[in-house]
């Protein structure tokens, strides 16, 4: 693929009050792509966006736009527009004037402004809202005005900082589709920030997983899911059983006291590794036919499948299966070679245990607190 780079971050580092927020990150953003920065709170996503927008100057490293260094170009001279998290609509202007703001600065003719604003309103499904007071709009409507306002300038790149964070689930899904459509239609590069992995996977061409001010992995949603780079990514994206293992040889891994065939190679002989097996890739079989055997701890009905926690060799696995098993039942599990993913050991290797402390309730609780922020 010979895609054109539009933005490059080269070795960009930033500290606030002596605390490292971005630790020498390198990122290429290509034209017309939908790229998402994904990571837990405080990992530096917003800071990265603000560096691209021009509100934060990196301590070291370069920001390039079309191959030209723009470290010292002020925000108002960059071909980049932002959709702010809390919308930041101008309260003293109505919907029409908010959207027209950028054009008015450029002394555009009234007819041209009218034409463009109407186009934008149609695009975000707000036709007829011209005269409305922005303070009286619903969250979803304000969001649309913010998008229209940022797009009217035909920016080369649109930055979106958790634009859907404040919307309820239903509206959020609708807006995800709409944003994706707008991005396809306009062909504008979107750099999107979220800490919602589902949103990131379903919308993006490229996902950038960040943690602790570092980029953990850059790749397509399927790559990120199927081939996580390290234990952090594996844990952050979806559910995963992360086990300690040893690479015996190319295509041969040992974990849980059993030798498995796998598709990974290129590791040193007997190199200690992290092994990822996704819960939906584990087959439940009769104990005698299983590669590993264990006793079922608990079973939860999830609609599409059962969520089964099984203890095998002192490790609690999560398995998603459509077949019902009983708690206390002895089962075997079977894992296909392509269901096994081997990762190099990293600083995150020991941070993710098994599912022994796992409880749905707790997860929901932590989700809720996250959303409040």
């Amino acid at each position, binding site marked *: 693929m010979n895609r054109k780079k539009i933005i490059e971050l080269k070795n960009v580092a930033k500290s606030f009050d002596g605390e490292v927020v971005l630790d020498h990150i390198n990122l290429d953003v290509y034209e017309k792509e939908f790229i998402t920065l994904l990571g837990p709170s405080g990992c530096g996503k917003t800071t990265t966006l603000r560096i691209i*927008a021009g509100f934060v100057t990196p301590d070291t490293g370069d920001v390039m736009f079309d191959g030209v260094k723009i470290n010292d170009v002020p925000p108002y001279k960059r071909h980049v527009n932002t959709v702010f998290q809390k919308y930041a609509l101008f309260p003293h202007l109505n919907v029409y004037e908010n959207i027209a703001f950028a054009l008015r600065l450029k002394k555009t003719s009234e007819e041209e402004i009218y034409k463009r604003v109407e186009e934008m309103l149609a695009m975000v499904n707000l036709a007829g809202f011209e005269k409305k007071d922005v303070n009286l709009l619903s969250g979803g409507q304000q969001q649309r005005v913010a998008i229209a306002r940022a797009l009217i300038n035909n920016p080369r790149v649109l930055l979106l900082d958790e634009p859907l964070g404040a919307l309820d689930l239903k509206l959020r899904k609708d807006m995800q589709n709409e944003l994706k459509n707008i991005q396809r239609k306009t062909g504008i590069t979107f750099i999107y920030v979220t800490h919602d992995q589902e949103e990131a996977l379903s919308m993006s061409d490229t996902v950038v997983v960040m943690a602790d001010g570092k980029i953990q992995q850059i790749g397509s949603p399927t790559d990120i899911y199927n081939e996580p780079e390290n234990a952090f990514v594996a844990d952050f994206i979806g559910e995963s059983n992360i086990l300690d293992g040893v690479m015996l040889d190319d295509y041969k891994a040992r974990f849980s006291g059993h030798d498995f065939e796998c598709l990974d190679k290129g590791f040193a002989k007997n190199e200690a590794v992290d092994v990822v097996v996704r819960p939906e890739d584990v087959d439940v079989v009769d104990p005698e036919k299983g590669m590993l055997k264990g006793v079922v701890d608990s079973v939860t009905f999830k609609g599409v499948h059962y969520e089964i926690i099984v203890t095998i060799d002192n490790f609690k696995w999560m398995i998603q299966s459509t077949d019902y098993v009983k708690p206390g039942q002895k089962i075997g599990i079977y894992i296909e070679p392509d269901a096994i993913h081997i990762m190099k050991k990293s600083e995150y290797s020991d941070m993710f245990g098994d599912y022994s402390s796992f409880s749905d309730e707790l997860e929901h609780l932590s989700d809720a607190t996250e959303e409040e922020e």
Partner: protein
Amino acid sequence: MHRLAAAPHIVWSVLFIIAPLMFVIYYTFTDANGKFTFSNIASLAQASYFEIFMRSICFALIATAVCLVIAYPIAYFISKAKPKTQKILMMLVMLPMWTNFLIRTYSWMALLEDTGIINTFLGKIGLGPIHMINTAGAVILGMVYNYLPYMILPIYSVMSKIDVKLIEAAYDLGSNPFQVLTGVIFPLSLSGVISGVTMVFVPSISTFYISQKLGGGNFDLIGDTIERQFQTAYNYNLGAAISFVLMILIMISMGIMNKYSDGETEVVV
């Protein structure tokens, strides 16, 4: 508001607002014997009173304008400072108000006199003396000096509450720093400007004493005229009538201000 909770407010209003107002109206429309009359008001229709009113309006407008021009950038820079610095700077702004109004005015006399501190200094460096005391400029200076904090305070308080995200959004959409000021900061601080203008204009137009001391009695203002009626002429009825007209004048100007503020932020009296 609950009726009970409103009770102290009502008592307070009656005591300190309604009652004095009633007195003013009573004296305005009665003669020395307490008989109803329009003669007090009618007697104001004289060139000399007209001149005093016009001068007062004129001085108050100039003082307000000067205050605005000085206060706006000060408020802007204070609101841009670090939170700790903001507190200190605002305290400095309020500092002169800790000394008595009379003392402040006397100090200015000492400063502005032909043989005063400023002229002594100017004389030494060969630039003076410049005659300053007893001029219209000195009177307006006195007003500006005394009422400037009332302009800075409301503008600063509105400005410091402007969401920085709005300013960033304006930059993001292509505003240069000057356009950010005119397109976002100014319109969003307008309510502070309107309160400030009111809070300076009203005391300026009714001020007394400043003109007597810094204007040397050459510039009679409404406030001084009212004071004279009560203090020296003992003509309460005429004094009340002047106050009454002044009140109407202030009410009209407040009405105009409220209209400008678009009903969005009512001027608080």
